[in-house]
C-alpha cells in the first residue's frame, strides 16, 4: 500500500478540503448557521490542539485548560471595554497574559505528577473561575458583552463571517503545523521522553522540569489565542467559558479524535460538536415514528446518551477516531 494513501490520511484530507470550501457551500446553500458552527469548531479545535501538545505528547493531563480560553477572552473583552479596540493591542496582550498565567500555574502544578496534576490544574481553574465571577466591573457572573470585534486597521474585517472563518482556519493550520514541528524537534523529543520515563531523561542530563514548563506555557499561550478568537466569535465573555466542564469537553475532544496525533484534536472537535448538534435531531427523527411525542421530549435529554458513549469510547476505542481509522486500513 502506498504510504501516503492510508485510510486515515484520506479522511483527514477530505476533512481539510471540506473545511476549506465550507464558506462557499454555505453561501450557495444560503445557510449561514454552518459558518457560525464551524467557526466555533475551528476555535475549539485550536484549544484542543494546544491541550494535545501537553496531554498527548507530554503526558500532562490538564483538567483546567479552559481557563486559558477564558483568560484570552477576558483580555480581549476588557481591552475592548476600556477603549482599546485594536487587534494589534488585544491579541498580543491576550497571548502574553495567557503565557504569564500558564507560567505561574505550570510552575506550581508541575511540581506534581499523575492524579495530583489532574486535580491541581482543576483546582486552579476553579480559582480563576471565581476570580472571573468576582470581576464586578466587567459583568461578574453575567459576563461582558463586546460591542466591536478586534480591529486590524482595515486589513481584515473580522465582522465578516467568511473572513473571520478563514482567519480561524489559517490560524488553526498554523497552530497544527507549529505543534507538528515542535514535537519533531529536539525539544519535542525531550518532552515525549519525559512522558515515557522522566527519571531516565533527568539521568541523561536534561532539566526536564524546564522543558515541561516551557511546553505548558506554549500550550497555554496557544489556548489563549483560541480564547481571543472565541471572544470575537461570540462577542461576549463570561465565566461560563472557563467552567470546569469546558475543560472536560476539551479532554473529550482530544481523546475522541486521538491523543498524540497532529490532526486528532481537529477530528475530535468536529466529531463532538457536530454530534452535539445532530443528536437531538436524530433522536427526534428516529424516535418519533416509534414513540411519537415522547421522542421529541426525549431529544432534550441527549446527554444521557452522550455520557455512556464517552464511557464506551474510553473502554473500547483507546486511540479515538484517529486510532480506528489507522487500525482498519487493511
Amino acid at each position, binding site marked *: 500500500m502506498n504510504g501516503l494513501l492510508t485510510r486515515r490520511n484520506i479522511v483527514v484530507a477530505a476533512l481539510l478540503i471540506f473545511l476549506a470550501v465550507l464558506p462557499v457551500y454555505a453561501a450557495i446553500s444560503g445557510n449561514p448557521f454552518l459558518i457560525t458552527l464551524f467557526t466555533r469548531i475551528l476555535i475549539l479545535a485550536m484549544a484542543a490542539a494546544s491541550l494535545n501538545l501537553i*496531554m498527548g505528547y507530554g503526558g500532562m*493531563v490538564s*483538567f483546567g485548560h479552559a481557563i486559558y480560553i477564558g483568560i484570552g477572552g477576558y483580555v480581549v473583552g476588557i481591552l475592548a471595554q476600556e477603549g482599546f479596540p485594536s487587534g494589534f493591542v488585544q491579541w498580543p496582550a491576550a497571548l502574553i497574559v495567557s503565557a504569564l498565567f500558564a507560567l505561574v500555574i505550570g510552575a*506550581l502544578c508541575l*511540581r*506534581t505528577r*499523575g*492524579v*495530583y496534576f*489532574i*486535580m*491541581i490544574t*482543576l*483546582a*486552579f481553574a*476553579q*480559582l480563576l473561575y*471565581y*476570580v472571573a*465571577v*468576582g*470581576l*464586578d*466591573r466587567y459583568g461578574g457572573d453575567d459576563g461582558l458583552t463586546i460591542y466591536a470585534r478586534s480591529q486590524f486597521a482595515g486589513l481584515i474585517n473580522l465582522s465578516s463571517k467568511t473572513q473571520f472563518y478563514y482567519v480561524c482556519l489559517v490560524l488553526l493550520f498554523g497552530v497544527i503545523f507549529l505543534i507538528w514541528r515542535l514535537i519533531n524537534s529536539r525539544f519535542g523529543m525531550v518532552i515525549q521522553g519525559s512522558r515515557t520515563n522522566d527519571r531516565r531523561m533527568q539521568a541523561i542530563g536534561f532539566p526536564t522540569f524546564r522543558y515541561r514548563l516551557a511546553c505548558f506555557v506554549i500550550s497555554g499561550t496557544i489556548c489563549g489565542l483560541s480564547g481571543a478568537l472565541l471572544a470575537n466569535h461570540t462577542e461576549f465573555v463570561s465565566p461560563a467559558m472557563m467552567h*470546569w466542564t469546558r475543560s*472536560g469537553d476539551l*479532554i*473529550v475532544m482530544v*481523546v475522541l479524535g486521538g491523543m498524540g496525533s497532529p490532526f486528532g484534536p481537529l477530528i475530535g472537535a468536529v466529531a463532538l460538536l457536530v454530534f452535539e448538534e445532530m443528536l437531538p435531531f436524530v433522536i427526534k427523527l428516529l424516535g418519533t415514528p416509534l414513540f411519537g411525542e415522547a421522542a421529541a421530549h426525549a431529544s432534550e*435529554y*441527549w*446527554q*444521557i446518551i*452522550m*455520557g*455512556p*458513549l*464517552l*464511557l464506551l*469510547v*474510553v*473502554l473500547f476505542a*483507546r486511540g479515538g477516531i484517529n486510532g480506528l481509522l489507522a487500525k482498519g486500513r487493511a
Partner: protein
Amino acid sequence: MLLFLEQCLNGLQLGLLLFLLAAGLTLIFGIMDLVNLAHGSFYMIGAYFAATFTALTGNFIVGVVLALAATLLVGMAVEVIAMRRLYGRDHLDHVLGTFGLILFFNELVRLIWGPAGMNVPLPAWLNTHFQILPGVEYPTYRIAIILVTLLVALFLYVLVMRTRIGMLIRAGATNREMVGALGININLLYTLVFGLGAALAGLAGLMQAPILTVQIGMGENILIVAFVVIIIGGIGSIRGAFIAAILVGLIDTVGRGFLPDILRLILSPRGASAIAPAMSSMLIYLLMAAVLVVRPEGLFPVSNK
C-alpha cells in the same frame, strides 16, 4: 466573639461534610487506584433520594435511612456495570469515563425529578435551637450533622483499622493479587468499598438537603473542594483527609465571615467589599497552593504509593 464561635461551628460542620466526600474519594483512590469524578453525583443522588423518600414516607429519619440504602445500591451497581472495567487503566481513562457518568447522572436526574430544585422540610423536633453556651443558640440540626459525621468518622476508623474487612481493604490496597491468591473475593470487596464510598457521599448530600436546595449539579462544586481536601491531606490517607477537611471547612467559612472586615482595615470600604467575595472563594485554593509548594505530596503522604 459569639459570631466567631458560630462561624467556627459552621466551619466544623462544612469540614466534616467535606470529610465524608473526601474519605470516599480517597478510599476508592487508595484501594482501587481509581479517580472518580462522578463521586459528586452520589452526593446529588443521595439528596434527591432523601427528598423523595421523606415526601413518600412522611418521616425524615425513615426517608434518610432509605435514601442511604438506595445510594449504596446505586453505587454498587455503578461499580459492577462501569467502574470495574476501568481498574488498572490510565488515570486519563478514569477522568473521561467518570466525566461521562456525570453527564449521564445529571440528565437522568433531570429526566426523573425535573429541572426544578427540591426542598426537604425538617421535622419539628430538629428544627429548633440548642443552647451551647448561656445566651448562645445554635440550630439543633447543625449540631446533629456534626455528631453524625463524627460518629461516621469513628465508624470508618474502627472499620478500616480494627475489623477483618478493614484488614482486607488495607491488604487489597497494598497488593491486590496476593489478597486474591489467598482466596479472598477481591471483586466483591471492591464493590463493597465503592458502595461504601458512594454511601458516604450520599450521606453528605442528604444531610445538606434540608439546608440547601436540592438541585442538579449540586455535587460538582463541592466535589472540587473535596479534591482540594485530598490534595492537601495527601491522596489515599484517611487521616490526612480528616484533618485537611476540617482545616478547609474552617478556613472557608471563617474566611467568608471575617475577610471583609479584615480587608476593610487595610483597604477603602468600597475596595474591600469589591474584592472580598472573590478573595474568600480563593482562600482554600491559595492554601492548597501553599501546601503544594512546601509538600507536593500533601500533608500526610501515603508512603507505599
